[in-house]
């Protein structure tokens, strides 16, 4: 019952999404609004500004390096969260904790 209901709702959502396809900017067109002066700036000035031939590397580590700092922090957060939940503390397994369990 729940499955059918979800299916109907999501089917409706899919129809709404698909019906808007023809109104989206076409794929792969050079005149698309997303291929604007920002993208052209990266392509024309990227090598000059950053000295990197790989423009994606230029963006992630120079133009938008702060995002990448956030991203490494996400990784750090992920591992901190995992360790907080299931980590076994080898190097800090003090006598106190042993007492706790024993």
């Amino acid at each position, binding site marked *: 019952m729940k499955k059918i209901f979800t299916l109907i709702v999501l089917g409706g959502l899919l129809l709404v999404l698909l019906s808007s396809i023809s109104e989206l*900017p076409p794929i792969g067109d050079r005149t698309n609004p997303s291929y604007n002066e920002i993208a052209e*700036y990266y392509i024309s000035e990227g090598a000059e500004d950053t000295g990197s031939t790989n423009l994606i590397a230029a963006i992630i580590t120079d133009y*938008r390096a702060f*995002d990448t700092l956030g991203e490494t922090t996400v990784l750090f957060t992920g591992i901190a969260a995992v360790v*907080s939940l299931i980590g076994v503390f080898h190097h800090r397994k003090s006598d106190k904790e042993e007492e*706790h369990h024993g």
Partner: protein
Amino acid sequence: MSNIHFPVYILMLLLIFAVTIPLQRKSYGRRFQILMVSVLGIAWIMALLELLMVLWDAPYSYTFGSYPAGIGIEFLVDEFSALMTLIVLTLSLLIIIYSLKDLEHEIESSRMYSYYTLVFLLIFSMIGMIFTNDMFNLYVFMEILSITSVAIIAIKKKKDTLMASMKYLMMGAIGSVTVLMGIALIYMVTGQLNMSAINEEISAVWRLYPRNILLAMGFMITGFSIKAAIFPLHNWLPDAHSTAPTPSSALLSGLVVKAYIFSIAKIMYRVVGKNISVDIGIADYLIIFAVLSMMMGSVFALTQRDIKRRLAYSSVSQIGYIFLGLALASEMGFSAALFHVVSHAFMKSALFLSAGSIIYLTGKRDVKNLDGIGYEMPITMTVFSIGVLGMIGIPGTSGFMSKWYLGLAVLDAGHPELLIVLLLSSFLNALYYLPIIVSAFLRESPGRPLEMHRDGIPGTMKVSMVLVAVGSLVIGLFPHLVMDIIQQAVPTFIGSGMGL
């Protein structure tokens, strides 16, 4: 002392401290606690200087990598974001002081370092979300926030906590994915990620690609609403906030939800712009959901017997107030919403901290068992009462002022019928909050003489709790302290900002 790098200094101080916590050699103890509080203290001083600087000079934009905004990432430091940062740091400082003793009862001692790593990352990401003026940067900070906010619940490792955090993580992940879809749709037609730059382009785009903007708004508002727990999407919140350790509940209810709401405000007013938000008609829908949230949150709260669960449901209804302000799409409504963000942060933190103290001392979570607790813990119950009176909206409290502003905004926007909803919701608030106070102070507890005691909780918990309550009172008695800053910030916020 003017220095434009203050936002970076605050963020990096928090981040550096967070990442160095796992390297601590000594076992968790007093030395670390002092270090932690002083780091937050330094960050707090910097935030205060930052606010004074912005008020003295003018809002400014800070670009990373010295590239122009749009090419690089931009921070927009305006009055309200500086104020929000100060409030986030104030409350987190007080909550962390509270947590020093309280946490010993709630999580394993070997997880203390992990907990504080996560809390510092949480504060870091909230401040990042407040300052950023870049859509994708907002998403990155939001992800840090959604992982840490789940992790500080799950760390308790009780059975129900695990299920609650799983639910929260699932809903949160769906929310983030939805927001990212919205960002993609907006990027598709504007080619910009900078919020002010999008705002400049969007009026032209709105005519060319209305469907894109409509879908993008739908996706983003839905995504953030999941994370901010608006009524039909709220079902993770009561579980998560009530099972979490008390300091986490206070952080989550007081601050984290506000960071998401502030993001919605940014999307509606700074990115898409007020006029288009109204044209799309999204404002009208939001009013419906806000009203539903206000009413249903209170109705659900009435049926709860667990005190923390009752507080959590009350958060749902209070978030409805903030949404109502945002949905009015007027400057008055907007500033009322921002005011309520601030005042609710203080009130809810005070409520959760005092409820946590009750649980700490007596272990009682059921509101039926709180008879006469006011004599056993007078300070705690006074703090609780201040929070409650604010929630109901007794004159002189910050809650009254936010309802007052909200009422004025509702009348100004020409929706007098919403005033009834406001009053009805306040009445419901009174219905589920007042009995707790009445029974705490006026009823006799079974098997205990009715005489004044001193609260048997550690001093740090008392001090921090009282300071939060005092903060709430100060905002209530001198609302202009906050309101002036908000009104100064509204033009820069709604106007396209500084942009490219």
